[in-house]
């Protein structure tokens, strides 16, 4: 069974129902909408930075998390995961194909969202010199793609472990929005632990010194590597669990 066939099968699955289309569309529209709102509320004579313009990536990320988790949990919900495992008894190859497809789509969505945000902002705010000239600017814009890719990997892994839409989505939305930001509240060690939270690390990669980490240990590039490692590690655990459990 070649990877191409399995990925092709997964893409028929993903694009033959409506919700992934909506999730992906919104994941592109919301960040652009946020960029528009940010620029319009910004004073017209003060330049806005690329990082400010890209702040809305988090909305897109939430929707990518939803899209990727649902790609797994709806299969459990409707029993098609059993049919999948019946057709591909090795299981891991089918699940890796799904991960590759979903993560690839997420990366494209991230790229479109980030470039769209930048484009809209440059048109609406000509005073700012918005571009991809510096390393910080490159990371803030093009970096959204890999962040979405690894976010999708995390969501697939959580979907495989939880196997249930409500639980998986609650976890995936509450974790980056509430748990990680609040870790710094823990006395003494909180500040130090927080930068090792995966989504905080991803944010550090995108926004550099503007992120919430006061005294980062990792460079932005290393923060992305760390985020990727966490997602791949989680996926590896999920694949082992999925192989062992009854379908």
């Amino acid at each position, binding site marked *: 069974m070649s990877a191409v066939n399995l990925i092709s099968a997964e893409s028929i*699955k993903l694009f*033959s*129902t409506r919700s992934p289309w909506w999730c992906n569309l919104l994941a592109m529209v919301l960040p652009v909408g946020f960029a528009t709102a940010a620029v319009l509320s910004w004073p017209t004579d003060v330049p806005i930075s690329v990082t400010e313009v890209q702040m809305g990536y988090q909305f897109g990320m939430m929707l990518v998390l939803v899209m990727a988790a649902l790609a797994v949990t709806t299969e459990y919900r409707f029993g*098609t995961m059993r049919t999948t495992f*019946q057709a591909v*008894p090795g299981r891991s190859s089918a699940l890796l194909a799904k991960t590759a497809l979903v993560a690839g789509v997420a990366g494209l969505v991230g790229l479109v969202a980030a470039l769209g945000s930048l484009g809209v902002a440059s048109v609406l705010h000509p005073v700012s010199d918005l571009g991809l000239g510096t390393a910080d600017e490159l990371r803030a814009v093009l970096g959204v793609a890999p962040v979405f890719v690894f976010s999708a990997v995390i969501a697939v892994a959580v979907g495989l472990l939880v196997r249930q839409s409500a639980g998986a989505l609650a976890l995936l939305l509450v974790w980056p929005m509430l748990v990680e930001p609040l870790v710094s509240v823990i006395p003494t060690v909180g500040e130090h632990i927080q930068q090792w939270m995966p989504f905080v690390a991803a944010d550090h990669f995108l926004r550099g010194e503007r992120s919430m980490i006061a005294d980062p240990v990792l460079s932005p590039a290393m923060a992305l590597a760390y985020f990727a490692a966490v997602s791949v590690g989680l996926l590896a655990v999920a694949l082992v669990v999925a192989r062992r459990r*009854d379908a």
Partner: protein
Amino acid sequence: MIEARGLTRRYGNKVAVDDLSFSVRPGRVTGFLGPNGAGKSTTMRMILGLDRPTSGTVRVNGQAYHELDQPLRRIGALLDAKWVHPNRSARAHLRWLARTNRLPDRRVDEVLEAVGLAAVANRPAGGFSLGMSQRLGIATALLGDPEILMFDEPVNGLDPEGIRWIRGFMRDLAAQGRTVFVSSHLLSEMAQTAEDLVVIGRGKLISQCTTAEFIDNASESLVRVRTPQAEELRAALARADAEVRVEVETGALLVSGVTTQLVGEVAAAGGVVLHELAVERASLEQAFMRLTDDAVEYQTTALPAPELVTAGR
């Protein structure tokens, strides 16, 4: 060929399948019979590698399921017709499945045609009736044109037309030389379609034999006699050690443990006129109940049955 050896599955303290060994012979329809909760579905899931046996093995054509390359081409199965995404069209459902085992898209249209769903192929499967879902499930099983087919309770909940269609379909599949393994909790259903039977109760094997053998062994046969000289015949049969009861409504005699020849000879010897002499089988359901009586998972206390047959005076 499906071969189970010592197949066992426990869920906590509960044993769903208990040291089950059987084989499904190629080119025949084998019925998998047992009361609800006997472990039929669990066994079928283990055959497909979906559930992991606690111990024992099951092999398809001599290989463990997970060793099969492109398994849809070897064994097709319908375990639950509702295993489809309700917003996905029947065609899309079959297309992704075909892609996993490198089956051409042309095959999708062939099986849709074969089960009579071509006209509704682009409609979401969630809107299908049970009968249509069942047809889609069968299309799924046929997709890889496999030599072995497995169906779990395929006629459950179907209307008479649907049942007739499925029965005919299974007979056709067997006539094409395919191996069909089909489960049911109804012996009468199996008697119509299956040549061989694997009978289980509470996860244990009760019997593996041909359907004819099973019915012969399981059912007690009665000889039914109508005669104007009932008293004389009853006395004569009693002398021949036969057990005789009188059917209340008709006055006919029901004789157990004898053949029609013996009854005829006894009657002739005694100069008794016979109006009817026939073998009457206990119903298949009764036979099945007798064999699986203590193997029923969820037993109820039987209500006292109205007495239709009384001992003769």
